[in-house]
């Protein structure tokens, strides 16, 4: 449960970053699209990791906040014409506000009931945008602009630049969440997860801590949503189906739940694998389904555990 020593963690983060940048250098046009998708998925999964891995709050409606971020971006930037940077900030704020509203009710529930209420809220948001006319309903809406990076001499319309931007955003989210997890706040979340009654008995306002985690996770998911909307310049209700929530949840569990790096790695593997499989066979979902089941059954520490084992071996060899 406790994070590994910061030295090995930071080294692992650098390795991951180096792999991402290495892939960025060698990959073609489509590879950069996939890299951006990986970074966005990693952000989404890391935000859910804060809830699931730290606070023990299993949400099956996390895609709703992802979608709210994307639609917020579309609304502020494409409909109202705000500068993309401002629109992103506003969309993240809306995501946080929505999470606050939902969280006020949801964090009072535990276990399966928390899973169910997040599912219900997620489906409500999905139903709303399915019906909504301002954003094109089922058909969705296009024309979402990308960040204006001309101030630093870059053009975000270039997929290479956008992929870098997404990776940078993922890195930033990792650093911030990593600090949050290590802070007293993160310690309290873990204490609540391990023994809620005892933590409450010690005088800790458990509900408020859970709510705060829910809001942060919602805001970060919304940030991922703003990037997803920019990536394809497009939003549709498909961004917030409950099956996406389920898939991200599996990514988190396979990644080891509490480990941000493990979760990010799992996100990368998941996106890459799906992409490869879907080019190979129309029945790729069968393979993914079997993989889901097997991985969840055998995932003890998940990828995180495997990475730590690898690190220990590397460290030992270096010590020789």
């Amino acid at each position, binding site marked *: 449960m406790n994070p590994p020593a910061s030295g090995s963690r930071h080294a692992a983060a650098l390795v991951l970053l180096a792999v991402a940048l290495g892939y960025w250098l060698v990959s073609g*046009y489509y590879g950069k699209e996939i890299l951006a998708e990986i970074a966005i998925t990693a952000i989404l999964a890391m935000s859910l990791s804060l809830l699931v891995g730290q606070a023990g709050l299993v949400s099956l409606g996390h895609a709703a906040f992802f979608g709210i971020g994307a639609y917020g971006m579309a609304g502020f930037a494409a409909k109202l014409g705000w500068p993309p940077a401002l629109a992103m900030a506003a969309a993240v704020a809306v995501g946080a506000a929505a999470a606050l509203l939902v969280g006020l009710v949801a964090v009072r529930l535990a276990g399966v009931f928390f899973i169910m209420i997040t599912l219900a809220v997620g489906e409500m948001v999905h139903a709303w945008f399915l019906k909504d006319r301002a954003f094109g309903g089922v*058909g969705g809406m*296009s024309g979402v602009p990308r960040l204006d990076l001309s101030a630093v001499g870059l053009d975000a319309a270039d997929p290479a630049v956008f992929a870098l931007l997404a990776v940078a955003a993922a890195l930033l989210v990792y650093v911030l969440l990593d600090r949050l997890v290590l802070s007293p706040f993160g310690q309290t979340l873990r204490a609540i997860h391990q023994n809620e009654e005892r933590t409450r008995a010690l005088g800790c306002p458990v509900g408020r801590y859970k709510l705060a985690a829910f809001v942060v996770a919602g805001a970060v998911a919304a940030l991922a949503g703003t990037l997803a909307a920019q990536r394809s310049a497009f939003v549709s209700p498909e961004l917030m189906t409950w099956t996406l929530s389920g898939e991200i949840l599996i990514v988190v569990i396979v990644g080891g739940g509490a480990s941000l790096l493990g979760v990010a790695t799992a996100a990368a593997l998941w996106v890459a694998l799906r992409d490869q499989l879907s080019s190979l066979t129309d029945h790729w979902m069968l393979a993914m389904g079997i993989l889901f089941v097997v991985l969840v059954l055998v995932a003890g520490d998940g990828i995180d555990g495997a990475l730590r084992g690898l690190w220990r071996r590397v460290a030992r060899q270096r010590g020789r």
Partner: protein
Amino acid sequence: MKRFQAAALAATLLAVAAPASAQAPIRIGLVLPYSAGPFVAIANEITDSMALALEETGYMVAGRKIELVREDTAHKPDVAQAKAKKLVFEDKVDMLVGPVASAELTALFDFAHQAKVPLVIPNAGDNEVTGEKCSPWVLRTSFSNDQIVRDMGRWMAAKGFKKVALLAFDYKAGHQLMGGFKKPFVEAGGTIVTEQYPPFGRLSDFGPWLGRIRDAKPDAIFSFFAGPPATLLVQQFQEFGLDREMKLTGAGWLVSPLNLPSQGKAAAGVIGALNYVPAIDNPVNKSYQERFQAKFKRVGSEFGAQGYDTAKLIHAALAQAGGKTDDKAGLVKAMHAVKIEGTRGPLRIDPKTNNVVQDIYVFETEMQGDAVGYKVLDRIRDVQDPPNGCTLGG
């Protein structure tokens, strides 16, 4: 990435027979929902029928091979867009064909427009795509929603249907098709007695909506549904005894060959308007249906026919361009220049809108022996959309 075995085989055989050509093959990228969502059957129907059409040409045009390269969208707009980019920039396809659903189209449209790659739409019908939003790079061989129903409004008024109830899902396509029918119908003297728009998505029952329509006492219902909801409507229309009081009509997908097996005899007696019916009597369609049925043991649907015609039109355009694909604008020009006899009759692409100009058929389903079949009631020739805000014509 999957290429067709048949394509490869045919191409190899021809390469052996004909003097070896040093030219690279022409590649057509298919972006369709092969793996997930409600349109898998449609995606396969389109692809299979395109393959049928290209087999007839030996996968060759002007001395160059033709290859179909397919990518799966998983019924997700962002995946559709990413796969389109992959096809264009990595696989170097010369043009794109896709998608089925309108959300995927919205995502593909912008990419094709910006990348200046010809995109040929084999199914989605959003009016705006060949109307106010039109692009010089996006062509449509299927239909616009308005094109399907516009003349049906006049036709029904002329046939003595005075009072009509409208019924469609509450979303863009539903409103486009109902609106497209309503205007000419009312102008021709008809009255719309009620309009019902159930929420899009999971509909378990038409009961409530049919109850309201019954209260309005129309002569007919004009509707737009496809897939399982269409089956549900056709069945429930009969179950609730509405068939004794009024006629069920609509955009012809209601009783598509894909739906007939699940609709059973309840499908008899429906009047539909569409750009294709299996019963169309022309040599191209007869040969298409014969070959399709021999191979797949079922009747080819309008989706298949659209796929077949799309491949034929593209082939004709490639021949017109002399097999040259580097000049993408020239390719589009060739698409505008050719005219083919398709399964639906004569077809061409209108340079003013990039939408297809085609015949629209009014048909009725009836019992033919033990099974439900189609009878063509009327044929409206050369149906061409007005520019609708599209400025391609200058």
